[in-house]
C-alpha cells in the first residue's frame, strides 16, 4: 500500500470532486487518512490538501473506471456516494483503487473489508429507498401532491424515476427533511433543489376525508386473530411511521410519536 496516510484531502462534496480525489491519490501514490468536505470544521492533525474539482480529471477517472473495472463498479460507486456511511468518500476511493488492481472481479470480493462495508451501505440505501416507494404519503392540496420524508440515506435521486414515471400528469413535491432537499416535478420536468424548510398546509375537507378513509381501511384490514406487532415493526420500522397517514390519529399513534402527530 502506498504511504501518505498522514495526508487529508478536502473536496467540494460532489461526485465529480470525489473522482478528482481518486485522480490525485493515484497520481501521487498516496492514500489520504481522511477525505473531508471543504467547509467542514477541521480539527485534524494532518496537513489538509484541497482537491480542486477539474472536469478533465473527472472524465479521465470516469473512463478509466468503465474501461479497467466495469460499468457496474461505476454504478456501485455512484450509489455508495448517496449512502449515509461515515467516511464513505474514503471507502469509495479505496474501492476504486482495489478495482484498478483486480479489475471487474472486485465486485465479487465480498469478503474484503472495504468492498463488504460498501456493499452493506449500498444495500441499506436501496432498502430504504425501496421501502419509501411504498411508505411515502402524499397530501393533495390545490391539486399538488406533497410529501415529507426523513431518510438516513440520500434517496431522492433513487426515488425520482419511480415517482415521475408513476404520476406523469401530476405536480408533486417530496421534501427530504434530513438533507434539506426536495424533488419537484411538473409535467414532464423534474429537479432536485435545496429547500430551507417546508410546512404542510392544513388538509381541506376532501383531503381529510380520504385520510380518514385510509385509516379506516388500515384498521379494518387487520385480522385480529393474527395480531402480530413484532412482525409489523420488523417490516416497517417505527421511524417511518411519523409521516404515514395511517398513524396520524390517536388510536394508532405510539405514545412516543403522538405529540408531534397531534400538534400538526
Amino acid at each position, binding site marked *: 500500500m502506498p504511504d501518505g496516510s498522514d495526508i487529508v484531502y478536502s473536496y467540494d462534496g460532489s461526485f465529480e470532486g470525489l473522482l478528482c480525489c481518486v485522480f490525485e491519490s493515484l497520481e501521487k501514490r498516496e492514500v489520504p487518512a481522511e477525505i473531508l468536505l471543504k467547509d467542514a470544521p477541521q480539527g485534524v492533525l494532518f496537513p489538509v490538501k484541497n482537491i480542486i474539482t477539474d472536469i478533465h480529471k473527472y472524465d479521465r477517472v470516469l473512463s478509466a473506471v468503465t474501461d479497467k473495472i466495469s460499468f457496474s463498479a461505476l454504478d456501485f460507486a455512484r450509489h455508495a456516494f448517496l449512502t449515509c456511511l461515515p467516511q464513505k468518500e474514503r471507502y469509495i476511493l479505496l474501492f476504486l483503487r482495489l478495482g484498478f488492481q483486480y479489475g471487474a472481479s472486485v465486485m465479487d470480493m465480498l469478503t474484503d473489508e472495504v468492498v463488504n462495508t460498501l456493499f452493506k451501505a449500498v444495500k441499506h440505501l436501496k432498502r430504504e429507498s425501496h421501502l419509501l416507494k411504498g411508505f411515502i404519503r402524499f397530501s393533495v392540496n390545490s391539486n399538488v401532491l406533497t410529501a415529507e420524508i426523513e431518510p438516513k440515506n440520500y434517496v431522492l435521486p433513487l426515488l425520482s424515476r419511480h415517482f415521475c414515471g408513476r*404520476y406523469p400528469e401530476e405536480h408533486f413535491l417530496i421534501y427530504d427533511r434530513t438533507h434539506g432537499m426536495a424533488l419537484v416535478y411538473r409535467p414532464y420536468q423534474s429537479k432536485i433543489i435545496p429547500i430551507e424548510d417546508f410546512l404542510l398546509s392544513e388538509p381541506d375537507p376532501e383531503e381529510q376525508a380520504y385520510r380518514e378513509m385510509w385509516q379506516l381501511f388500515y384498521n379494518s384490514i387487520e385480522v385480529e*386473530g393474527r395480531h402480530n406487532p413484532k412482525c409489523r415493526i420488523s417490516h416497517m420500522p417505527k421511524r417511518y411511521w411519523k409521516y404515514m397517514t395511517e398513524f396520524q390519529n390517536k388510536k394508532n399513534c405510539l405514545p412516543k410519536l403522538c405529540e408531534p402527530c397531534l400538534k400538526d
Partner: protein
Amino acid sequence: MDVFEKLKILTSAAKYDVACTSSGANKKAVPGGIGSASPWGICHSFAGDGRCISLLKLLMTNVCINDCKYCVNRCSNDVQRTFFTPRELADLTINFYRRNYIEGLFLSSGVINNADYTCEQMIETLRILREEYRFSGYIHAKAVPGADTALVAKLGMLADRISVNIELPSQRSLQLLAPDKPAESILTPMEFICHRIQENISDRKTFRHTPKFAPAGQSTQMIIGATPDTDYQILRLSHALYSKYRLKRVFYSAYIPVSSNTLLPPVGSKPPLLREHRLYQADWLLRFYGFSPGELLDKENPNFNPFIDPKCNWALNHMEFFPVEVNRASYQELLRVPGIGVTGAKRIISTRRTGVLNFDGLKKLGIVLKRARYFITCGGRTVEGLKCNQDEILKSLLSKRALSMYNQGLPLQPQPEQLSFFDEPLLSEGDNRKCLTGQI
C-alpha cells in the same frame, strides 16, 4: 349508507383473502394517464397482523347467493350487506393511488344475482379505471366461479393478475363445506385462464402489439386447517397446480373460525398459524430450492414437524448428503444447507471465484453459521471444536422456546378439539390427483 360504512363492511369482508402481492407486472404510465407497476411489487404498509398492504383489497359486494360454510359472507350468515358501484370503486382506487396509499386494486366479490352479472360489474369497474382514468397500476381480480368464460376472458384483458380460489385442499372437503361450488366451477376457469395466458404469450411473440392477458399470471388460495387434509396432500396439490396450471403463487390461509358448524373447528379456536408458516416454507422450497413434495413428506410422515422447519428436517434425515464443501459445491447443493438461502448461495458462488472462502468470509456473506456449520466444510475443514451430535444440532436449529417444549414433549400450538369430521376415514391419496385432472 355512506362510503365510510361501505368501506368498513367491504374491507372487513375481504380481509381473509391472503394474497396482497403486487408483483409480476412491469408497466409504465401511459401519456395522459397514471400508474405503473414494478416486477417485484411494493408494500405500502403493514397491518397490525404484520401482513403487507399493497393493494386496496375489498369486495365489490358482500351479498352472496352461495352458502360456503367457512365464509363470513355465506347467505345464511346474519350480517349487514352492501355494495359499491363500479364508479365509486374506481374513484376510491384513484384517490388512494394518487396519495400513494396503494399499489392498485384487489377486487373480489360475493355472487350477487348470478355469476355473470357479478363478473360484468367487476369488468365495468376495471374498464373505468383502465379506459377513463388510463390507470396502469396493478389490478388483481378474482374470477367468479361459474361465470361465462367470455367474461373471464374480458376480465383477464383488464387485470394484471387473475385468480380462482381452490378454497379447500380436496374434493371431499369441498363437497362438504362449499356445496354450491362444484369443483368444475373452480377448475374450468383455472384451466381456461392458463390456456389464455399461454396463448397470449405466443400471440405476443408473433404480433408485438397484442394486448396482454393477465401479465402477472394466475394465483390461487386454499384454506388450511378447516378440514382434515394432511400437509402432504396439500403440498402435492400445490406442486401439481404449479406444474399443471402454471400458477404464479399458491397462497395458504390458516382457517379462522367464523361460524359454528359441526363440520368446522369451533369458534374461538386458534388459527393454525404455525402450520400455515410451515406450508409457506415448504412452498418456497418447491419453487426456488428444487425440492419435490416427496422429499419433504411421505405417507408415513404426512405432516410437518411443528418444531423444525422443513429444510432442516430434511437435512437431519439426510445426513449422508453432508457435509458439502462450500468452495466446490454446486448451487443446488448449497441451497440444501440449513442457514444458506438463495442470496447466500449466489454470493458464495460469485465470491469464491475471487479466492478461497473460509468461515470468517462466510459470516461476512451473511451465512447463518450457527446452523450451517454442521453441514459444511471450508477447505476440507469443519468449524473448530464442533460437536456433531443430534443434541447439539437440534439445539442450534430450534429456538430456545421450541427446544424446551420439544424436550417436554409439548405441542407448540393448542390443538382444536377433535371433531366429528376427523373421525371419518382420511381422504385417499388419489383425491388430489383427481382434482387436478378435472374430476374432483
